[in-house]
Structures are given as C-alpha cells and as structure tokens.
C-alpha cells in the first residue's frame, strides 16, 4: 500500500520527491522488517490472551521419561506471525508482482494447512489427532505442483528464457543441468521436504524460529544479488528483474520471526504450532526455488535437514522396518534431551550451529 501511495505522491506532488525511496528495495526491506517486528510485538500480548480465552491451548506430546517443561504455552502462535507478515507485505510489497503473489500464496496455503492440523489437534485434545501424514503430503504437494507449473511454464513469471528449469548448485558458477520437465517433480520434492523439515524442527521454545530467520536472511541476500543488475553481474549470478520483491518478503519474515521470538523465547508464552512452522517451511521451500538455490538449503538449513533426516531414519528405517532405534529419541533435539541436556542449552547450541551454517551459505556467494 505504502509502495503505491509513495509512487503516486512521487509522481504527482513536487515536494514529495523523497518518496522515490519506496523504489529502493533495501529501504522497503528494512522498513518492512521493522513493521513486521513491531506488529508482532504489539499484537502478541493480546493474541496470547485471546487464544487462551478461547481455549486454544497446546497439546504437548507425551514423551515417556521426558519432563514436561511446557509452560502451558498456547498453540496457533503461528497465526500471529502470519498475520504480521501479511499486513507488512500488504503495506510495503509490490502486490501486483507475480513474485509477491507466489510468496503470499505459499504463506497462506501452508498456514491454512497447518492451522487445520492445529485445529484438529486442539479440538480432539490429542496431539495424534491432527491431519494424517498422507493428507498433509497431498495438500503440500498440491501447492507445490501448482507453483512448479507456474514457475516452469514460460511467460507467467518474468524470468530470463530457459532459466526456470536449470539446476544450480552451490560452489559452481554455471548450471549443472537443464532438467526440462523433470524440474517439476524436483520442485515438488524440494518444497514438501523443506516444509516438513521445518515442521519437525519446531519442538522446543525458540528452536525453529531463529534458524528460520537465519535461512530466510541468507535467501534474502541471494535474492537481492539476483535482483540487482550490477551486483549480479559482478558475482556472476543470473539477473532476474523483479525478484527484488522476494527480498521484501524475506526481510519481513525475518522481522516477524524476531518479533515472534519475543514471546517464544524460553519459557514460551506462545508456540507457533503447525500453523507457523508449515507457513514458514512452505515459504522457505518456495523462496529456495525462486532464487534457484535449492541445494543451498542443505547447507544453510543444515539444522532442519538434520532434524528431518534423524526423524526419518529413526521412524521409517529404524522402528518400522528393523524394529530398533538408532537414536534415543528423534528428531535429534529430543535425543539430546534424553541424554540430559536442558532445553535452553540445546536451543542456543542449535542457534550457534545454524548461525555458522548461515555464514557458510553466504560464503558460497563468492566461493564458486
């Protein structure tokens, strides 16, 4: 909204020429981040009260031997974050840009999906009563498939011709392959995998939200590089006009994550629930594809990859197939809880690891 207002004033009111600021991506990115942060913090207290009053309380999963340190936090906190993100994007984003629309679509679709899951869990008072695994996968893949089609079919997005289906990997300047139509299943897999890995990581107060903000920050930088004609030429990235809108969304999400951490830090008053973790995960997956850095997630999102892999190995290979456990519990943060690490200790250590991985990820800008 402010973008359109600013443009209008810049064009029509002589003394408001400073309004050309709204054309600067870095200005809107920073303003958006601050807006999202402030909105989350200002709304937060009220939302917590509102949710509690309406009986939307968390259903912690009952782990044998694990002390329930839960402070009876309220689930659906993700809705708070999603609302702030949407409001900030509405204020600062270029809403007619297809990139903005795709990002908004991802947030809304995955938030609704996670919200439905949360709703079922709370309604039945049982953490196992949510959507079934296959239902989640189908609904996630539906979005991912539509997104992949929009992305791959030329002319819908303002991408340079032939770029959409090319596969980039970190540390290499040139694309390694042109996947053609095979790129569609690859996109579906990427989005679904990333969304679920974030969902799995959301198990302790503040565990998911900080690594998400690191990852989204790194992807924001990559999007900025691609959107900038000179920098992209200097760093030898494909120049994609219009992808700057992704930078706005990324920084807004970054701000909202920090605002959410305000309430979510140990001991949490509110947790993001599936609403938040799905929305963030789905958006991360979408952004990773949009900036053509899918494999970068293996580095910057190493924490999430670790959570997802440990959980899959434990459940699918270990328990279901072999009838044994590889870790004491999975995903790995529960393993360390079982081994006797306090929640806070695990969380901060994960943040440190995520920070280092984010720096590694940023280094791949130049090391290629």
């Amino acid at each position, binding site marked *: 909204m402010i973008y359109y207002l600013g443009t209008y004033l810049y064009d029509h009111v002589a003394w408001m020429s400073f309004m050309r600021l709204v054309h600067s991506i870095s200005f809107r990115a920073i303003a958006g981040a601050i807006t999202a942060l402030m909105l989350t913090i200002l709304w937060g207290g009220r939302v917590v009260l509102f949710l509690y009053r309406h009986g939307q309380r968390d259903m912690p999963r009952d782990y044998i031997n694990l002390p329930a340190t839960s402070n009876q936090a309220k689930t659906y906190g993700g809705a708070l974050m999603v609302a702030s993100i949407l409001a900030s994007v509405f204020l600062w984003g270029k809403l007619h840009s297809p990139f903005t629309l795709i990002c908004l679509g991802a947030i809304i679709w995955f938030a609704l999906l996670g919200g439905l899951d949360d709703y079922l869990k709370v309604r039945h008072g049982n953490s196992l009563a949510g959507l079934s695994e296959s239902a989640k996968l189908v609904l996630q893949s539906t979005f991912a498939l539509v997104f992949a089609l929009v992305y791959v079919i030329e002319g819908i997005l303002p991408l340079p011709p032939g770029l959409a289906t090319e596969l980039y990997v970190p540390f290499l300047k040139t694309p390694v392959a042109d996947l053609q139509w095979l790129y569609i299943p690859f996109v579906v897999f990427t989005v679904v995998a990333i969304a679920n890995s974030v969902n799995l990581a959301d198990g302790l107060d503040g565990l998911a939200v900080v690594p998400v903000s690191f990852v989204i920050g790194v992807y924001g930088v990559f999007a900025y590089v691609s959107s900038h004609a000179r920098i992209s030429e200097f760093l030898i990235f494909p120049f994609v006009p219009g992808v700057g809108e992704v930078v706005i969304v990324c920084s807004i999400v970054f701000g909202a994550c920090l605002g959410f951490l305000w309430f979510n830090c140990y001991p949490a008053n509110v947790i993001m629930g599936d609403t938040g973790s799905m929305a963030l995960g789905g958006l991360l997956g979408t952004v990773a594809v949009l900036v053509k850095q899918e494999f970068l997630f293996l580095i910057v999102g190493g924490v999430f990859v670790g959570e997802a892999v440990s959980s899959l190995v434990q459940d699918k290979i270990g328990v279901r197939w072999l009838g044994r*456990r590889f870790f004491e519990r999975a995903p790995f943060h529960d393993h360390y809880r079982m081994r006797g690490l306090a929640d806070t200790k695990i969380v901060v250590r994960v943040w440190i690891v995520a920070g280092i991985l984010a720096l590694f990820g940023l280094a791949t800008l130049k090391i290629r």
Partner: protein
Amino acid sequence: MKYLLTGGGTGGHVYPALAIADEIRRRHQDARFLYVGMRSKLESRIVPARGYAIRFVQSRPYPRSGSPLALACFVAYLTLGVLQGMLILFRYRPGLIIATGGYGSAPVLFAHAILTKIGLSRARVFVYEPNAYPGLLNQAVGRIAHRIGVAFERAGRWFDMKRVAVVGYPVRREVLETDSQQARQAMGIPPDRKVVLAFGGSTGSRIINEALVRALPRLRQRDDLLILHVTGRYAGPDYDAVRDTAVRLQDAGISGDTSSWYRSYDYLDQIEFAYRAADLVLCRGGAGTLTEVTVCGLPALIVPLPTAAEDHQAMNARELERQGAARVLYQRAYWDDGRIDTCLPADELADAILELVADDQQRQRMARRSASLPVKDSLGLILRELESLASSHRPPPLDLEYPLPDQGLPADPNALLRVVRERLAEVGGPANLEPSELRYLCYQADRLLVSQEWYEIPLGRRNVGVKLVGCLDYTAHLSLLVSLLTDRHPVSWVKRLAGGDYRHGGLLRRNVIELGLVPLGVTTATVRKALLQALQTDPYYEVRAAAAQALGSLWGPDRGVERVLIQALDDSSPAVVKQALQALGRTGTSPDLLPRLRRFFLAEHWPYRLHVVEALTRLLEREVLNSEDVQLQLDDILPTSSFFTPEFPLNEKLRRLAEMTQTRIARHES
C-alpha cells in the same frame, strides 16, 4: 423367473446359496439359475456338480494391510470383475440376484449398481450374510441390496435396519431329515460305540488334522470310542490334507485295519449321516458348521480359526459356549526354531474328548442345550423374503434393540490391547477374570504372537501379543518369551547392512523383557540365564538396558547377577550404564563397589554422576557402604550439570488450588 446366485470363496458362502437354489427349484419348476463365482475356488467344483450353470468373475479380498500396492491390485481385479459382471448381467438379465457374501459376490453387485444407475438392470437384490460379523465388502454391498437376510441378529447392526431380516442359517433338508439309527446303519457303526466326528469345514483344517492324529494314541485307550475323521481335500503347495495325514498316521504307528475305532475320510458326501451318528463333534467355528451342529443337537468342541475375518469364529464359538452347548479349544502359539507357529495342543484336545466321552450326563446336558438353541426354518424365511421381494411387498422391518451391545474385541491390535488393559483395571487383575474370558483373552495373545509382522503400522501385532502375555499373566508362554529373547537367527543381509540384527527385532526383544518377563515376575533359572545373556551379549542397547533393569528389580542380592551388572558399567550406551547403576544401588552387596563407582565421579555426562549419587544413597540406606567412606569421597564428585528443572510457581499454586477445590467438592458430595 431368472435367478442369479453369487457368493464365493469358502463353503460358508457357497452352501447357503445352493440350499436356497435347491429350495426354489423344489417349489418352482420353471425357475432358471445362473451361479457367478470365482474360478479356482470351491464353487467351481460344487456348483456344476449340483447341476447349476456357473460363470466366473475376478475378485480379491479387500487388503487390510493398507499397502498401496495391494490396494492397487485389489482395485484392478475388482474393476475387471465388475466389467465381467456387467457383461453377465447384460446377457442373462436376472429378475432376482441372491448374494451370499464373500468377496466373490462383490463384482456382480457393483456391476448391478452401475447398471441400475443407467437404467439397464431392474433386478431385485437379496443379500444374505451368514456370519456374525459381515465382511467389509458385504458391508459395502449391503447398501445396494433391497433386502438383507442375516443369520445372527448381531450382524444386523452393520446394515440399514429397515431392510434387515433375521433368517438364520439355511440347513440342507437332508440334514434335517436323517435320523440317528438310520445313519449308524448306513455307516456300519455298532450302537454301543461312542462316535466322535472331527472335521475342519469344507476345505479341511491342518490344525485339527494334526492335533487329532497326535491325540489318537491316548484316545485309543478307550475301547468304546469310534473316531470319524474328515481330513478335507485341501491340497496346496504348503499342505496336502490327505497325504500329510496319512504320513502322520504312519509315523504314529496307526496302520492296518483301524475301522473299529478310527476311520479317516478325505470327504463325506453325506455328512448328515456322520452328524446323526455322532455323539460329539470336533469342528471349526464357522456359522454354517455350527448351525448344522446345533440342528442335530450335538455337543461340540470348537476350534475357532484365528485368522477368520474380525475373529468372528471365536465369537460364534464363545456364544455357543456361553449357552452351554459347546466347549471352545483355542489354538496356541509355539516356538518352532526361530519362527512362531500355531497348533492345537494334542493333550488338551485328548483331555477334552476323553472327559466328555466319559461323562455321559455332561454330554447329554450339552446336547440338550445345543438342540434347544433357536433354529428357525431358515429356508422358509428366506423364501418368504424372496417372494415378497419379487412381488415388491415390503416385509416388516426387523425389530431390534439398536444399537446392539457389542461384545467383540476391536480388530486393531493396539485398540484391543487398550480394551484388555481397561478390562483388567476394572476387575483388578487377570486372576479375577472368569476362566472362559481369561482363556479367550489369552487366545488373543496367541493369535497375535503368530503374526509375522512384529510392528505393522497401524497393527502392532506380535508386539501386542507379547504385551498381552505380560498383562494377562500368561505364564504358559514364558518359555516362548525366553526363546524370542535368546533367538539368534539373523535377519536378511539387507536389513543387517542397515543396522538390523536378529529376526526378532530389538524393540520386540526389549518389550519381551520390559512388558513380558517383568510383569510375569517369574524368577526361574532359565529366565535368569536369558537375562544375563541379554545383558552381556545383545547387540541392541535398549535390550541390554531393559535386562539390567529387570535383573535389578526381579532378583535380590545375587553374586552372579552383581558380577554381570558390574561388567555392564563398561557398556558404551549411557542407557545401559544408567540401569546397571540403579540395579547395583538396589541389589549390590559387595563392599568393593565404591572404588568401582569412583570412575563415574568425574564423568563428562552428568547423568552418570546423578545415577552414581543415587546408587550411593541407596547403598548407604541399605548399609552396604559405611558413611565415613562415602563422606570422604563426596568432594570428588563433579557437581556441574547441563540440566535443570524449571519451576513455574504460578502453575504450581494453581495446581494446588485446583486440587483443593477437587477434594472439597468430593467431600461435599460424599
């Protein structure tokens, strides 16, 4: 009038259809029939032999495993079957379709439903459900039917009440019309002999055949006994009823002319003679068999088929037992060198037969009960239903109490375990259960133990079997549990490469200890040896930890156990060390424990130190160590820790307030 009969798979579905057809043919000379069934199933042999035309369709049972491949296969076959069914319906154009259930009848009914939708079939549909629990496909086709006849009232609750009629099970006219003396004469049986008829349904039963042959040497000792054994003609790659029984008889030394006390048949064309001649029947628990048995007023020993859908045979059998007309013998799981198989214990069988044969009064009481069970003129009722269908009259709806109480156990093993645990909590332990109920619940454990899948989601079969053994105090299976724990047959190399070890997976072995052996609380030498072996050599850490815990909780101070527990302190897994420390604290007696525990004082992981402190406390309480020695060492224990338990004073006070209101209210109410 043109009739189309369909239903197939086993005798339970085919015979009723034939009985109905015979009766219609008897009453209406001009009736025409076509049977639609499956090739390679029972109907393909019997139906042409009875003089009816038969056509074949494809079908498969609904896959309960839920695997997508099996489901796709099922859908493919069913689609093909429906197309075939449509072709048959289109050519034959029946006026009335009579379906007797089994998955063989589904294609025709679905085809009929589709043709009706597009106005190409005007046939009326009568579905007959012979079992107390309708199969899944029969439940589905019940919606298409104009009228549903059920043999048991309780089956009615799965269908639309307005269209259900209880009609009983159609017994062939010959069974009703034969009498005992005539039968004995025809079979050449002297009147003073007591006749035991043993048979396993239309296809025969391996379990009954094997158990009976093993029981024969004991049965032979009574000289007034005559055993009629119908083996069945089943011949598959895994089992050949006739040949296998012959071999077993040979091995048991039963050969030559045994016709005075034992006669073996592969199949009896006129089973009604055998029924009427018999004093006691050994049979499976299918609805058809049981109806014929009760029509003849026979006391029965029933061996329910554990793999029957929803375990309906056990329900049928228990119902007769409750009425006092029969006794149920359950199959047992047993250890067969690395696999778990199922059998009917021969001793139990021989005991039951000998007891009933010897006790005339008891047998006659059961016979009277059996004969007094309400058996309707089932064929007459069915024919009346059919006629009213043909003339579009609606017979009066079924007057049932709805919903009927469900006495059955849930089919899902985990739900079953939950129900059993609730039941045990309700009565306060397995000892307070009625013997027949306890036997039934134990049989559930047997049934689940036999399954190949230890952990088939959502069915945790064998795992649940182990848990049931533990919570039901089923000590007869102690040795089976020990065998599961100590079995060293490796799994396939693929699984070993991925981290598997033995055929009975790690979590199952852990549960054998934690939820099987510990609740049973038996402290025999074999259990001790198995646990010690598990603690020393099992490759999976949870098994070793569970073994350490079990040794600590089941055994008091014991030198041998203590030595192995001390060795376990070197274990690589923290979970095992933790359990070993706790067990040593509880049971350790040797005074040189203190120096052995010393090395954990500066352990990097604080849980070791915590458990050492706990163990020292315990040892001090039990006065194994003396206070001065311990006090001197306390400074050496590193107290830093990476764990704390948060306190939420508000939550704590709130909880106390809630408790207070709760107790006040309770006091007020009382």
